[in-house]
C-alpha cells in the first residue's frame, strides 16, 4: 500500500478512536471542572453504557432490526439509563463527601469503579459479549482504503453529540451555570443557582456521553466486556490533560488528537501496535511535565 494510503487509513482509524476518547474525556473533564474530582468510575460508566445499549438492542432488534433503526433507540436508552446512574452515584457516593478532603472522594471514586466492574463481571462471568449488528461493510473506497458508512456514522454521531453539548454549555442558562460553578461555587449560590443540582446535571450529561461512546464502541468493535472501561478511562484522562482538564473544547481536541497519535504511532518504524499504549502514556507524561495546563487550559490569572 502506498504511504499516503497507509496514512489515510490511519487517519480514519484515529478519527474513530479519537471520537470515542473525546466523548469519554468530556465527562471526565466536566466533572473535574465542577468538583475537582478525577472520577475514576467514569470509564466504567462507558462500559455500563455498552452493556445497557447491548441489552436494549437485544430487546429492540426484534421489531426494529439490528441496523441503525435499533441502534439509535439503544443509544438513547443507554444514555438515559447511565445518565441516571451517574446522578445516583454522585448523590450516594460523592455528595456526602463534598466538604471532605479530596483524597477521600478520590478513593470513593476508585471504589465505585471497582463496584461497577465487579457487578459487570458477576453478570457476564468475565466472558466477552458479542455485540451483533447487521450494519455490513458497505462504504466508500479511496484507493486501497475502505471507509464503511458505519464508521462515518460513528464519527458523525460523536460530532453531533459534541456540538449539542457545546451549544448547551455556551448557550443556555444551565450550561452557563455549569461553567460558573467550576469557577466559584459560593458566588453561584449568591446568584440563586442550586449548586448541588447543577453538579447532578453535570454528572447526568457526562455519564450520558460516556454511555453513548460505549454503545458506539460496541457497534464498532463487535464485542464488549466488563473491563473495557479501564483502559479507555485512563486514555480519556490523558486526552483531558492534553486538551486542558476542565476545558470542554480541550477534551474534544485532546480526544481526537490522542486517537490520531495512537493510530499514527503504530506506523512509526520499529514501533509496533503493541507499543501504542506506551506511546499514549508517554505523551501524558510529557504534557504533565512541560504543559500541565494542556493545550486549551489556562493558568489561573489573578487580578484584584
Amino acid at each position, binding site marked *: 500500500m502506498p504511504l499516503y494510503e497507509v496514512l489515510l487509513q490511519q487517519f480514519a482509524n484515529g478519527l474513530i478512536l479519537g471520537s470515542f476518547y473525546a466523548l469519554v474525556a468530556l465527562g471526565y473533564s466536566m466533572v473535574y471542572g465542577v468538583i475537582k474530582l478525577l472520577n475514576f468510575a467514569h470509564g466504567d460508566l462507558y462500559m455500563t453504557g455498552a452493556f445497557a445499549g447491548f441489552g436494549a438492542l437485544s430487546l429492540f432488534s426484534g421489531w426494529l432490526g439490528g441496523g441503525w433503526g435499533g441502534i439509535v433507540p439503544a443509544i438513547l436508552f443507554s444514555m438515559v439509563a447511565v445518565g441516571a446512574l451517574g446522578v445516583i452515584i454522585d448523590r450516594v457516593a460523592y455528595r456526602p463527601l463534598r466538604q471532605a478532603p479530596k483524597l477521600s472522594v478520590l478513593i470513593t471514586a476508585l471504589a465505585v469503579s471497582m463496584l461497577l466492574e465487579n457487578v459487570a463481571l458477576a453478570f457476564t462471568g468475565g466472558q466477552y459479549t458479542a455485540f451483533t449488528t447487521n450494519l455490513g461493510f458497505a462504504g466508500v473506497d479511496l484507493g486501497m482504503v475502505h471507509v464503511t458508512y458505519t464508521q462515518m456514522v460513528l464519527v458523525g454521531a460523536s460530532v453531533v453529540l459534541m456540538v449539542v453539548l457545546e451549544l448547551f454549555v455556551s448557550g443556555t*442558562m444551565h450550561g*452557563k*451555570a455549569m*461553567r*460558573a460553578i467550576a*469557577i*466559584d461555587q*459560593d*458566588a*453561584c*449560590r*449568591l*446568584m*440563586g*443557582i*442550586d*449548586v448541588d443540582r447543577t453538579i447532578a446535571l453535570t454528572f447526568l450529561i457526562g455519564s450520558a456521553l460516556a454511555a453513548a461512546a460505549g454503545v458506539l464502541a460496541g457497534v464498532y468493535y463487535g464485542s464488549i466486556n466488563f473491563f473495557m472501561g479501564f483502559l479507555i478511562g485512563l486514555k480519556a484522562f490523558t486526552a483531558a490533560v492534553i486538551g486542558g482538564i476542565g476545558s470542554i473544547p480541550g477534551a474534544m481536541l485532546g480526544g481526537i488528537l490522542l486517537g490520531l497519535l495512537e493510530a499514527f504511532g503504530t506506523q512509526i518504524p520499529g514501533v509496533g501496535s503493541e507499543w501504542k499504549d506506551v506511546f499514549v502514556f508517554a505523551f501524558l507524561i510529557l504534557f504533565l511535565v512541560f504543559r500541565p495546563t494542556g493545550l486549551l487550559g*489556562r493558568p*489561573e*490569572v489573578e*487580578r*484584584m
Partner: protein
Amino acid sequence: MTEPLLKVEGVETYYGQIHALRGIGFEVRRGQVVTLLGANGAGKSTSLRTISGLVPAKRGRVLFEGEDITRVAAHRIARLGLVHVPEGRRIFRGMSVEENLDLGGFTVAEEEVRRRRREAAYAMFPILAERRASDSSLLSGGEQQMLAIARALMSEPKLLLLDEPSMGLAPRLVQEIMRTIRRLNEAGTTVLLVEQNARMALRLAHYGHVLETGRIVLSGEAAALEKDESLAKAYLGGGPRNEGVAAAG
C-alpha cells in the same frame, strides 16, 4: 410600625472553634442604607455571610420580610430577593461580562426580561457595555466592582448586601462606587453596606453599627456616629482630611 425588611436577632456564628459573631442584632428598614463598621476581623463580613446563608448561624435568627431564613440554603435566600455582593467581587473570571450579567439573572425565567435588565445595566454602567464581550478577568478593579454590583442587580433584589465595595480602588473610583450606591438607594433598593472606609460609608448611610470582636458596640444614626468622638478616634482616623481607612486591630 411596619416590619423591617431584615431583622437580625442574637446571631452567633462560628468558624470551626473561632467564635466570630457573639450575638449581634440589628434591623434594616425598607429604603434605608445601613452600614456595618469595624476593624479587620470584627465580624462585618461574617455578618453578611451569615445573613446570606453562606455560613450557618449557630444561634439566633435572621428574618427577611418577616420570614425566618436562618436555616434556608443560600441559593433560596438569593431567590427571595436578598442578594449579597461578596468581598473581593467574586466575578466569574474566564467568562465574559455579558455572561456574568446573565448569571446574575439566573433566576429570571424569561429571556426577554433578562435581556431588558442587561440593557439597563449597560445604561447604568456604560463601561460594561463597551466591554460586554471581554473576559471579565481583564477588567480593572473598579470595573470588576461595577460588574459585581450590576450582576447582583440583574435579579432586582429587595435588599443588597455589599461587602467592601471600595476595597483596593483608587479614590476617584471609590467616589464613583459610592455615587452608584446612592443612586441605587434613591431608586428604591435597600442596602446593607460593610465598609472599612467608615467616613465614606456614614456619609451614605442612614444608620450605622460598629462591630468589635463579634459584637455591636455602638449603634446610631449615621450623622450622629460621624460626630462621635470615640468612633472618630478608633475608625475614622485623625482629621477630616484623612479619608479614613480604618486602623487594623
